[in-house]
């Protein structure tokens, strides 16, 4: 009996120790393996046409779950022709923003990844490797200012988008809208005509999927008619949501359209994937989106020429279609193979053709050829311009005020509120909502800028 007990006790201890030892020995193995690869790689002399000096294994994290096993695999093969000693692994996250944030609390968040938009600008250097001085890189790339801290840039945009209204030309033509509407009044009148025709939903909000509503915020520059508004004027005004100001005018179109029944019948049960097909097939007139969506909708259309893009309606003198960075590509501060990671970043932006093909926008490389979607606007009054970066010392203010006030400029919440109020689900009016937002803005602006 006594013996038995002791035996069990010993077994238990052995069990505990094997588990602990087992875990640690595993780690050792991996480390050794990686070390080995590094050594063998760096000792090889570079040969012609390829760069063998750069070696190692890198993990690239992407948001493109749809093409990670197809297009990205091809990219890796192309990349290996130039850098044969770099092994590239991919990880695709379906909810990129949400999942990467949690991983970034550890040291293990890949070697090359997209900079999450929600990390405060000032915190960027804690997580990412600087790619170079802005002054030097400016001649080579556009759109670097978004993630530049103390003169150093931390990311290259994977593509440069422009935003406006994606619409089905045939639906507009059939309803008797000959010219593209330029002002909000013309736009609402056009939508009304489509409704009267009774074939298509004039304007689709995608309320239930929520994130498409945030696309509206990116056309703020068009409404303002001024590239300074978003980053320079906005953080210095207390009248951000007051009648006559860009935000008020921008979302008034959304409110009016919803109130007049120019949006989908039941916004609470919309579906993004289905809406793309419906727009392609003429069941939907228009949606507010970025240029990245053009290719996706055209691919679904029986006649791709029906799908067109126009600037958001504005009363401003100039029609500015704002250019804005998509996600920026950066390198983890904790990467063990920074050289190889850098090689991937440069190759991906300059040589993979991702920015114009899969990304669907403009290449951030200065002097690169314009995509077909942009060439259409050559010779029109529409201007394509990047937003002015924030004044020195005011970087990140808009974001700070926005978060502190829980307004959510880039969140769907108050857009949903506007639609709910417009269709009669809330007792508040449009002006009530705007006043509420403005009060929150004023309060938090005082706090942040003091």
């Amino acid at each position, binding site marked *: 009996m*006594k013996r038995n*007990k*002791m035996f*069990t*006790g*010993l077994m*238990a*201890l052995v*069990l*505990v120790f094997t*588990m602990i030892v087992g875990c640690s020995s595993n780690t050792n193995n991996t480390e050794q393996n990686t070390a080995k690869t590094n050594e063998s790689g760096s000792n090889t002399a570079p040969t012609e046409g390829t760069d063998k000096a750069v070696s190692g294994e890198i993990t690239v994290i992407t948001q493109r779950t749809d093409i990670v096993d197809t297009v990205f695999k091809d990219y890796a093969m192309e990349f290996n022709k130039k850098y044969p000693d770099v092994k590239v692994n991919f990880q695709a996250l379906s909810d990129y923003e*949400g999942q990467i*944030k949690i991983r*970034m609390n550890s040291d293990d968040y890949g070697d090359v990844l997209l900079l999450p938009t*929600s*990390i*405060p600008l000032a*915190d960027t250097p*804690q*997580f990412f490797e600087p790619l170079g001085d802005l002054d030097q890189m400016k001649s080579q790339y556009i759109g670097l200012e978004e993630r530049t801290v103390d003169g150093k840039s931390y990311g290259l945009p994977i593509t440069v988008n422009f935003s406006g209204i994606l619409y089905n030309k045939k639906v507009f033509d059939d309803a008797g809208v000959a010219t593209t509407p330029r002002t909000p009044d013309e736009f609402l009148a056009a939508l009304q005509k489509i409704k009267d025709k009774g074939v298509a939903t004039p304007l689709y909000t995608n*309320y*239930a999927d*929520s994130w498409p509503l945030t696309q509206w915020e990116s056309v703020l520059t068009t409404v303002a008619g001024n590239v300074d508004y978003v980053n320079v004027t906005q953080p210095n005004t207390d009248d951000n949501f007051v009648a006559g100001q860009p935000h008020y005018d921008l979302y008034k179109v959304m409110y009016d359209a919803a109130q007049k029944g120019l949006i989908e*019948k*039941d*916004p*609470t*049960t919309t*579906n993004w994937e289905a809406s793309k097909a419906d727009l392609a097939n003429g069941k939907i007139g228009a949606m507010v989106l970025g240029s990245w969506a053009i290719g996706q909708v055209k691919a679904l259309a029986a006649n791709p020429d029906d799908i067109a893009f126009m600037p958001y309606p504005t009363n401003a003198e100039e029609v500015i279609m704002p250019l804005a960075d998509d996600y920026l590509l950066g390198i983890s501060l904790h990467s063990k193979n920074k050289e190889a990671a850098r090689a991937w970043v440069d190759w991906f932006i300059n040589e993979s053709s991702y920015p114009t093909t899969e990304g669907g926008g403009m290449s951030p490389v200065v002097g690169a050829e314009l995509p077909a979607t942009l060439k259409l606007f050559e010779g029109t009054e529409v201007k394509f311009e990047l937003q002015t970066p924030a004044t020195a010392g005011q970087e990140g203010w808009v974001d700070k005020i926005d*978060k502190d006030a*829980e307004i*959510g400029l880039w*969140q*769907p*919440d108050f857009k*949903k509120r506007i639609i*709910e109020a417009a*269709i009669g*689900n*809330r007792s508040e009016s449009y002006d009530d909502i705007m006043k509420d937002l403005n009060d929150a803005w004023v309060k938090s602006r005082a706090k942040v800028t003091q």
Partner: protein
Amino acid sequence: MFRNLSYKSQRIIIIIAFSLIPVALLFTLAYLPVFNMFRYSFTDWNGYSKQFDYVGFENYKTIFTDPKYFSVFKVSLYYFVGSFLQMGLALYFATILSFKVRFKNFFKGVLFFPYLLNGVAIGFIFLFFFRPDGTLDTLLQAIGLGHLSQGWLLNPNIINVSLAGASLWRYMGFNLIIFLGAISSIGKDVYEASDIDGANRWHQFRHIILPSIKNIIQLNMILAISGAISAFDIPYIMTGGSNGSNTFVIQTVDVAFKYGKLGMASAMAVVLLIIVIIVTLLQKILIKGEK
């Protein structure tokens, strides 16, 4: 090396050896996060930064003074009422299925199945179910009640009833299985004796089943009520808390991840934790008082 130890100390070694791993897991996965949550609730941490400031009770002050944080609790009332309905139905089905019924196991399976489904899948199923001309409307038309169909998620007066209904559908199976287990532990001889005494099914339920599973009903009750207070997955997936279906947990998640106020969200989570503890204690005290 253990030979010289007494039986008692050997026992202690065994107990420690066996509980070391579960306790370590419990500590790292349950207590440490909760401890950290308490710590964060006194800071203005944004979820990323390496440094943060301690702000004392500032976050708690905001929660209790700004009505927008607490007003969402009225949505929980729908789930609260729904949970009673859920318990009633579960008890009803569990009782029926514990007697002799044809295809008994099949029905058990059917009723328990929703609980096995992934919450996201259920969210999508019910989005199709509630959409205009969707499953529910088609069904109503088929049985001649077409005039009742309406915007199930569109109408702000109905949306929470719809969502609580979906939640009921999902979690009833769980209550059912627990009740079934409790009922099956009642000895067969008790039923036989009552049969001889001339008791019908209702009598058996009222005087045998109900008193025997009283503790389990209490347990389910506590689970259901704390579930109603912390309702999250169904409304989050289906509506994201829009159109007046916002719950306290959805709001906490929003504050943490949309607005980067992790300190504030931790404070909200602490408040929720305290509320659930209070409700559970109250329930225990009240039920004891009855005796």
